[in-house]
């Protein structure tokens, strides 16, 4: 066979048209007349729906039209056709038909406008074509003008209102138009208008209006609707075949009844039934008619359903495909694994393979590997050792390696064969969690084969994947070529993604207990016993000297690189009016000199994901390898420290003394009094309006301000009694989890509930709930929750709280679906853009999109929180 040259070609254009009846007959291999498929012997019936002229499905059989077998270069099948007894409207074109009927005359078929106006339209049309402009607006104008005419300017016929009764019924002034009448009308239109049809955006060379009413229906080839043979030997037909059977059956009955001169009513009923079947054959989700169903009650999947939506041909088979060499299972955490690793169950490792090309250098190795067979017994002290599943010989044959033939296959191994080796420790794989919203959703890891059935993940990579362990599953892909492996290693390894392209800071770092642990270890001058010191340092495989009575800060310093010099305010910083810096009473000013933590507590701002200063600095100054090492160590140290100190939280963390409760109550009743005063002032007309606001708005704003202050005040009182000895406070202050607001809502008061940013107004007439007086504008009646979560909410408060909570849920649901669709469209539009070597952003067609990437040409991952250089730091280092 002659190879076709594979030069890329540019598509100059694409043309769509409508098949004409004669065209359908011409391309038809056979006319179909019987609704039956196979005879008793199981052979397809000629002129039936499975006629071998339409192509064959079983390999070995030959097509009766072209004589070829099925296959890639063989017969793809041929269309057949049926002659419809009566014309039927094509659902896909009803809108176009309606527009044509509305803008043309039924008697003469002309466009409903004066000749002079038509001439103007034609001129405008040609201008549009010449300028290559979109015709949508123009056609809308033509239709608008010509469907607003009382009588035909050409023959004087009165213009009657044409209505489309969905899905396929047309009425002229209330009288039903049969498809035959519609077709006659359209025929007249194309006859009269001829080339002027272009005013309606119809090219008479490729589509005539009357072709939108079907008289002949093409029957798709058998291979578009193959029947499947069940185990019981029973044949099961495709949904499309079922639908076609219905169509042919009704068509036959319609023909017989009409020819026999049956009453008009019966013929019309059958005609309508035929219309229904053909409509649902095209689209079984047409609005206004019930979907055609299978005997089991399942709606049939017809033509439109095959293409449409997420499960349709486009999104499911063309934009996305299923792949081999992949695995999926539940994920679970492993605090000892590196961020660059992923734990893989033995079962999965045995199934997935890596191709190993046999060369003169590795043939002995490969032989030894094959000799192990597919189920090698691991040597003492190991739980797993990789075997071989297949050997692909040079001649293309794939041999399955078994326990019995392993020796034999190894013996006959040749250079150039490919050994499909099972996964082993240290292979590079891609790991992914959906939804894949950013590039960190798919990263490369090194494998670590482990027992049990879940993928094991470092806790530090949870933020970029947005993963937790409440049942999340993730996908794994094994790289098959050397290029892919190298590319993944360089571009996709987890450590390459420590710095986020979103803000230039670390997105991978310590979370939750890692932060609490480091906080507890380094707070103030905590001294540790020798035993504890050894315990913590052994967790990071420390090899240096250990002194007696080391402080937490000294222990933490052991993992800091010697080059590190930093000064910043910790997360725990109270944001005092003037920062005392080194003299901070809360130990919240961090100073690191030459890799030694001189003062300050290391918390979220130091080691946390999203804000860890130390991680960021190491990644920028010392490289990603060092940063990844640091993250591995700091998380292990955090866990070791928190295990020694001990840490827990419970409901009694929100206990506050009785006097504090009294203070809170007093503060709340003061607020209530203030609100009552405001309401009274409003009712007496004494309230002063804020400029630009109405009286009501002023009142609402003032009350919202008071309720906000009240909540803050109770929070303040509560937190005064919740010190740094309180676990919940430690977590909130160190940035490990939770916030002081959470705490004040649990211990102080929950605060004002809002719907659409306002106090709650809706409910019953003039009041929110029947528990309140009509017209009550006070705090409690409008959704102020003065109880706290610990004490519990009153019934009315609970109701208001649920209203606010419901709004939150709906908002997030709406937001995620909408932003998800927006993301899809953005990605589809931008996925092929590339930054070229000259700094421009271009499409695949080399058209420039940006003359400089991001206008400043800076890669945000290499930036300091968005800036190209950190000038302050450079100056500091110079001095």
């Amino acid at each position, binding site marked *: 066979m002659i190879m076709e040259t594979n030069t890329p070609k540019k598509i100059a254009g694409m043309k769509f048209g409508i098949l004409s009846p004669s065209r359908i007959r011409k391309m038809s291999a056979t006319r179909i007349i019987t609704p039956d498929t196979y005879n008793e012997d199981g052979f397809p019936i000629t002129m039936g729906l499975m006629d071998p002229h339409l192509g064959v499905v079983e390999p070995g059989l030959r097509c009766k039209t072209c004589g070829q077998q099925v296959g890639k270069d063989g017969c793809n099948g041929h269309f057949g056709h049926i002659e419809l007894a009566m014309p039927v409207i094509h659902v896909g074109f009803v809108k176009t038909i309606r527009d044509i009927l509305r803008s043309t005359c039924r008697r003469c078929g002309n466009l409903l406008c004066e000749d002079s106006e038509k001439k103007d339209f034609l001129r405008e049309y040609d201008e549009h074509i010449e300028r290559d402009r979109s015709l949508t607006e123009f056609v809308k104008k033509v239709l608008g003008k010509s469907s607003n005419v009382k009588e035909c300017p050409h023959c004087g016929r009165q213009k009657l209102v044409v209505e489309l009764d969905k899905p396929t019924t047309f009425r002229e002034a209330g009288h039903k138009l049969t498809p035959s009448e519609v077709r006659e009308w359209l025929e007249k239109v194309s006859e009269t208008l001829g080339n002027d049809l272009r005013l309606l955006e119809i090219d008479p060379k490729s589509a005539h209006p009357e072709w939108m009413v079907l008289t002949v229906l093409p029957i798709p080839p058998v291979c578009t609707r193959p029947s499947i043979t069940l185990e019981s030997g029973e044949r099961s037909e495709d949904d499309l075949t079922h639908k076609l059977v219905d169509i042919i059956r009704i068509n036959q009955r319609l023909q017989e009844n009409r020819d026999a001169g049956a009453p008009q009513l019966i013929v019309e009923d059958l005609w309508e039934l035929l219309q229904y079947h053909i409509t649902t054959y095209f689209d079984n989700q047409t609005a206004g008619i019930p979907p055609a169903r299978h005997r089991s009650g399942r709606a049939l999947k017809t033509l439109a359903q095959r293409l449409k939506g997420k499960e349709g041909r486009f999104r499911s088979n063309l934009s996305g495909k299923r792949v081999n060499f992949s695995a999926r299972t539940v994920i679970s955490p492993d605090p000892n694994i590196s961020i660059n690793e992923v734990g893989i169950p033995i079962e999965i490792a045995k199934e997935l393979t890596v191709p190993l090309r046999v060369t003169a250098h590795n043939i002995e190795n490969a032989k030894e590997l094959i000799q192990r067979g597919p189920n090698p017994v691991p040597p003492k002290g190991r739980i797993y050792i990789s075997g071989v599943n297949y050997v692909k010989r040079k001649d293309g044959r794939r041999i399955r390696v078994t326990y019995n033939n392993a020796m034999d296959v190894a013996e006959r191994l040749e250079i150039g064969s490919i050994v499909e080796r099972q996964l082993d420790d240290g292979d590079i794989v891609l790991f992914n969690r959906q939804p894949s919203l950013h590039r960190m959703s798919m990263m490369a890891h090194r494998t670590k084969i482990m027992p049990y059935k879940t993928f094991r993940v470092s806790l530090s990579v949870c933020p970029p994947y947005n993963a937790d362990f409440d049942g999340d599953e993730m996908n794994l892909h094994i790289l098959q070529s050397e290029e892919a492996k190298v590319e993944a290693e360089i571009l996709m390894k987890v450590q390459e993604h420590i710095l986020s392209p979103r803000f230039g800071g670390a997105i991978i770092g310590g979370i939750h207990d890692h932060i609490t642990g480091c906080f507890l270890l380094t707070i103030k001058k905590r001294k540790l016993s020798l035993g504890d010191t050894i315990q913590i340092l052994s967790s990071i495989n420390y090899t240096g000297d250990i002194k007696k009575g080391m402080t937490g800060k000294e222990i933490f310093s052991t993992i800091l690189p010697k080059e590190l010099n930093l000064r910043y305010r910790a997360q725990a910083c109270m944001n005092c009016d003037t920062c005392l810096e080194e003299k901070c009473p809360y130990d919240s000013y961090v100073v690191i000199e030459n890799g030694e933590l001189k003062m300050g507590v290391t918390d979220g701002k130091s080691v946390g994901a999203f804000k860890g200063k130390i991680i960021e600095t190491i990644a920028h100054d010392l490289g990603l390898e060092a940063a990844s090492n640091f993250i591995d160590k700091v998380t292990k140290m955090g866990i070791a420290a928190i295990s020694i100190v001990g840490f827990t939280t419970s409901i009694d963390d929100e206990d506050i003394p009785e006097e504090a409760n009294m203070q809170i109550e007093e503060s709340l009743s003061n607020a209530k009094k203030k609100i009552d005063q405001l309401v009274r002032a409003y009712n007496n007309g004494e309230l002063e309006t804020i400029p630009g606001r109405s009286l009501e708005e002023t009142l609402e704003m003032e009350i919202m301000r008071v309720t906000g202050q009240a909540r803050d005040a109770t929070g303040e009182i509560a937190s005064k009694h919740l010190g740094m000895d309180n676990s919940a406070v430690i977590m909130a202050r160190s940035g490990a989890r939770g916030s002081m607001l959470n705490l004040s809502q649990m211990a102080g008061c929950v605060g004002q509930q809002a719907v659409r940013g306002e106090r709650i107004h809706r409910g019953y007439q003039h009041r929110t709930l029947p528990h309140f007086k009509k017209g009550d504008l006070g705090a409690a009646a409008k959704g102020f929750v003065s109880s706290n979560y610990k004490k519990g909410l009153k019934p009315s408060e609970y109701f208001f709280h649920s209203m606010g909570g419901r709004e939150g849920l709906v908002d997030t649901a709406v937001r995620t679906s909408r932003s998800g669709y927006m993301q899809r469209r953005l990605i589809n539009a931008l996925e092929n853009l590339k930054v070229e070597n000259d700094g421009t952003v271009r499409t695949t*067609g080399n058209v*420039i999109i940006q003359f400089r990437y991001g*206008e*400043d040409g800076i890669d945000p991952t290499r930036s300091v929180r968005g800036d190209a250089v950190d000038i302050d730091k450079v100056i500091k280092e110079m001095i």
Partner: protein
Amino acid sequence: MLGVETMGFNILKHELVPYPKILSYKEIKKLLKDYDIQKEQIPKLLITDPFARAIGAKEGDVVKIIRKSITAGISVAYRLVVSSER
């Protein structure tokens, strides 16, 4: 080509409208050479765009646009004036 005089409001004076300059033949040639591109590879500016009308651009002109940028301070871009969307 209308020019800014015929418009009711001078959009060029608005803060958000960038500073424009229509390139000379020589400058276009240099631009194309610098980026190793054909004229069609330059981003497009529709001739009906109020901005194009205000500066009186003609089809085939290349407009240099200098504007304030959040990331770079000042950024420079070019637009090829065309009469249709394609």
